[in-house]
């Protein structure tokens, strides 16, 4: 397991040193959310009603932008092959990379969401729920996105293809993420049920993501 933490620490250090990627994702998130009132009109009632959906969909798109980077750099400089010859099973190595993606991209995006909620007139009472829901839901985005990143590593038009492969997989997270926030702002469904299911989806992706990604990587180093 020590190799797991070594790899995680290196990926986070690289994010800090090379910078840029997180800032780009946050900037994209901000712009997409800011485009909504411009497209739909500045009706505050309408905006506060659609705020949970807008915040989640924009977050998915922003996270999608950063997914190809998970394996790209390591593949280009040969690190991926050396990682494959380590003691650490490739499943855990890919899990470490997904965890690094979640810490460096998922958490910052989730923390930016309440600020963007201000722009959409989201009810103040919904803020703690918004952050909690996104922190619980975003691991699924990193770990399911990991599969897409691994599958499209050697593909032509990789980035576009990645979106096509991964977005349908995000539908359950999207539905229950929005349902949980809506429940907290007086929506029809129970908060607890949606929140627990959201957590279950994330746990499920924690298992299936690294296994599928490791299989895909193995096929491609050959």
């Amino acid at each position, binding site marked *: 397991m020590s190799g797991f933490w070594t790899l995680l620490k290196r990926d986070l250090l690289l994010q800090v040193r090379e910078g840029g990627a997180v800032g780009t994702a946050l900037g994209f998130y901000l712009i997409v959310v800011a485009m909504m009132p411009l497209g739909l009109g500045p009706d505050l009632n309408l905006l506060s009603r659609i705020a949970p959906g807008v915040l989640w969909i924009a977050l998915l798109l922003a996270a999608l932008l950063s997914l190809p980077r998970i394996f790209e750099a390591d593949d280009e400089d040969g690190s991926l092959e050396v990682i494959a010859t380590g003691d650490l099973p490739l499943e855990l190595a890919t899990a470490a990379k997904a965890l690094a993606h979640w810490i460096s991209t998922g958490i910052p995006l989730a923390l930016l969401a309440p600020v963007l909620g201000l722009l959409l007139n989201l009810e103040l009472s919904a803020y703690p729920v918004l952050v909690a829901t996104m922190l619980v839901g975003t691991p699924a985005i990193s770990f*399911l996105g990991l*599969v897409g990143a691994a*599958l*499209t590593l*050697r*593909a*032509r*038009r*990789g980035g576009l*293809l990645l979106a*096509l*492969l991964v*977005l*349908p*997989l995000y*539908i*359950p997270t999207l*539905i*229950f993420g929005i*349902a949980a926030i809506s429940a907290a702002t007086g*929506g*029809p*469904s129970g908060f607890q049920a949606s929140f627990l*299911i959201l957590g279950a*989806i994330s746990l*499920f992706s924690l298992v*299936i993501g690294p296994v*599928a990604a490791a*299989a*895909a990587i193995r*096929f*491609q180093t*050959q």
Partner: protein
Amino acid sequence: MTQTNTAPQQSLTQKLANPTRFMQLSGTLMPWLAGAAAALILYALYLAFFVAPEDYQQGQTVKIMFIHVPAAWLGMMGYALIAISSFGYLVFRHPLADVSAKAAAPLGAAFTFLALATGSLWGKPMWGTYWVWDARLTSMLILLFLYFGLMALRSAIDDEALAGKLCAVLGLVGVTILPIIKFSVDWWNTLHQPASVIRMDGPTIHPDLLWPLIVSALGFSLLFFALHMKGMRNEILRRRLRALTMAEVDRARGVSAPAAAE
């Protein structure tokens, strides 16, 4: 001794399912399968237009069901076929499994699209609009996206062997997530649309409508299998042609398969 890699022995099923034998078997089976499919579908159409009664609420439009329901069913079965083939390819490494998965994808997508299109046409007189975000239709739409993803991934990777393996991984990931997607879409639907708008099939169906539906479903299933078999035959022939072309290229360059000796 720390690591040993040994080539797997060919099992009995592998011998039975070798491509040459498959070509022989499918060649004799094809005309019968296609003929039976055509006969059943024609009979189903006859039943639909001349025998089955009109629905007292829906009128003639209820007969869209005879195409819509089998198409939806085969759209889903196509993905199940892909999942089984993917498993067979990854676990048993059988090349025919990859051929089967590749042939099933456009076919499943076509039937899923047919289900969506007929559902939309049926929806116009029923709901007054071509598209309603009904739970079933939405799930079928997402299924269509999964088919698109599989076909796009295969076309985006130049190395065909690699493309087959990666599509198999995606097929298995898709089939494990599909039930969760279905569940979440149903949840979402009950949240936003408490009452089910229309009952598309189910146990309350009138017996006079049930019989044509069964015949139609059987006919379209045979059509699916005939097309799938034809697709597999085409793919096998295409691969043989490619292997011959590659051998020709090697011969032109003056090298045969590189070999090594001590």
